[in-house]
C-alpha cells in the first residue's frame, strides 16, 4: 500500500495530496498531524465512499488507512439530494449598519432557522463568521440544535487559525478551502450572508 507523508503541510495541502493519490490508487496510507488535517482528510475520504481507519503512530502523528468500501453505495458527494442548499456566512454580523444591530440580526437569523421547515444541507462559516461557531457565541445553542437535526456546520480552518480560535470551536467541524469550494460548486443553491 502506498504511504504518503502529509505532516507539516499547511491546509488544504493534505487533502489535495490525498485526492491526487486516490485518483491513482484505491487504497492509501497517510501520515498526518492531529487536528484539522486529520479531520479534513478523514471526512474527505469518507464522503467519497472510502473506509478510513485511524491510528496514532509512534511519532505522535496520525496514520490513516484509506481503503475502498466494496459495500458502499455511491459516494455521498456525487449523490447529493437535489434540494441541497448551502448557506455561506462570511461575517458575524448581518448587513451593513451599526455593529450592534448587525450582530443581533445574525443571532436572530440563526435562531429563526430552527423554526423554518426548509433548512440548508450545510452552513459554511468563513472570515469573522467563525465567531458564531466558537466559544462565547450566542448562536451556539441554535447551531448545536441544527447540527443535531442533520445540518452540516463547517468552519474555515484558516479563519479559525487567523483569529486564533482553533481550540475554541464549539459546534460542527473544521473545514478547508477545497471542501468549501466543492460544497459551493455542488450546491443547487448558495445563499450568502
Amino acid at each position, binding site marked *: 500500500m502506498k504511504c504518503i507523508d502529509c505532516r507539516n503541510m499547511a491546509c488544504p495541502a493534505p487533502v489535495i495530496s490525498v485526492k491526487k493519490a486516490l485518483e491513482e490508487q484505491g487504497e492509501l496510507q497517510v501520515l498526518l498531524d492531529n487536528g484539522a488535517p486529520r479531520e479534513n482528510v478523514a471526512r474527505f475520504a469518507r464522503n467519497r465512499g472510502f473506509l478510513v481507519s485511524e491510528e496514532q503512530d509512534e511519532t505522535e502523528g496520525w496514520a490513516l488507512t484509506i481503503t475502498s468500501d466494496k459495500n458502499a453505495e455511491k459516494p455521498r458527494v456525487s449523490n447529493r439530494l437535489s434540494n441541497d442548499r448551502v448557506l455561506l456566512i462570511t461575517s458575524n454580523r448581518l448587513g451593513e449598519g451599526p455593529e450592534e444591530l448587525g450582530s443581533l440580526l445574525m443571532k436572530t437569523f440563526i435562531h*429563526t432557522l430552527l*423554526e423554518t421547515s426548509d433548512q440548508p444541507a450545510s452552513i459554511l462559516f468563513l472570515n469573522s463568521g467563525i465567531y458564531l461557531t466558537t466559544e462565547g457565541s450566542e448562536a451556539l445553542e441554535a447551531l448545536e440544535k441544527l447540527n443535531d437535526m442533520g445540518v452540516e456546520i463547517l468552519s474555515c480552518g484558516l479563519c479559525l487559525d487567523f483569529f486564533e480560535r482553533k481550540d475554541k470551536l464549539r459546534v460542527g467541524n473544521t473545514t478547508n478551502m477545497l471542501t468549501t469550494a466543492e460544497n459551493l460548486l455542488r450546491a443547487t443553491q448558495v445563499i450568502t450572508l
Partner: protein
Amino acid sequence: MIEEGHLLAVFNSAHRVMKAENILKAMNLPILIIPAPSKLQTDCGMAIRFSEDILDRIMEVLASEKLLPEFVTRYEGGQFVRVWTNSSHP
C-alpha cells in the same frame, strides 16, 4: 430554544431590548436574546429568555433602568402563560 419553565420578557422596541440585553449581560445574568415566537405578537419581534430563579432580579434591574418589557410570559405545558404585564402599555 424555549423549554418548559423558560420565561420570556417581550419588548416593544428593538432599542429597548438591545439596551436591556447589554445591561443584564454586564451584570453577568444568564440571559439570551431570541426571536419572539410567532405566537406572541410583538412590535419588534425580540425577547429576552431567562430562567425562573432570576426573574425577580431581572425585573428589579429593568425597573431601575426604566426598561421594563411589554410583558413577561412563561412557557408551560406547551403554552405561553402571561405572568406579568406592563400596566403603562395599552
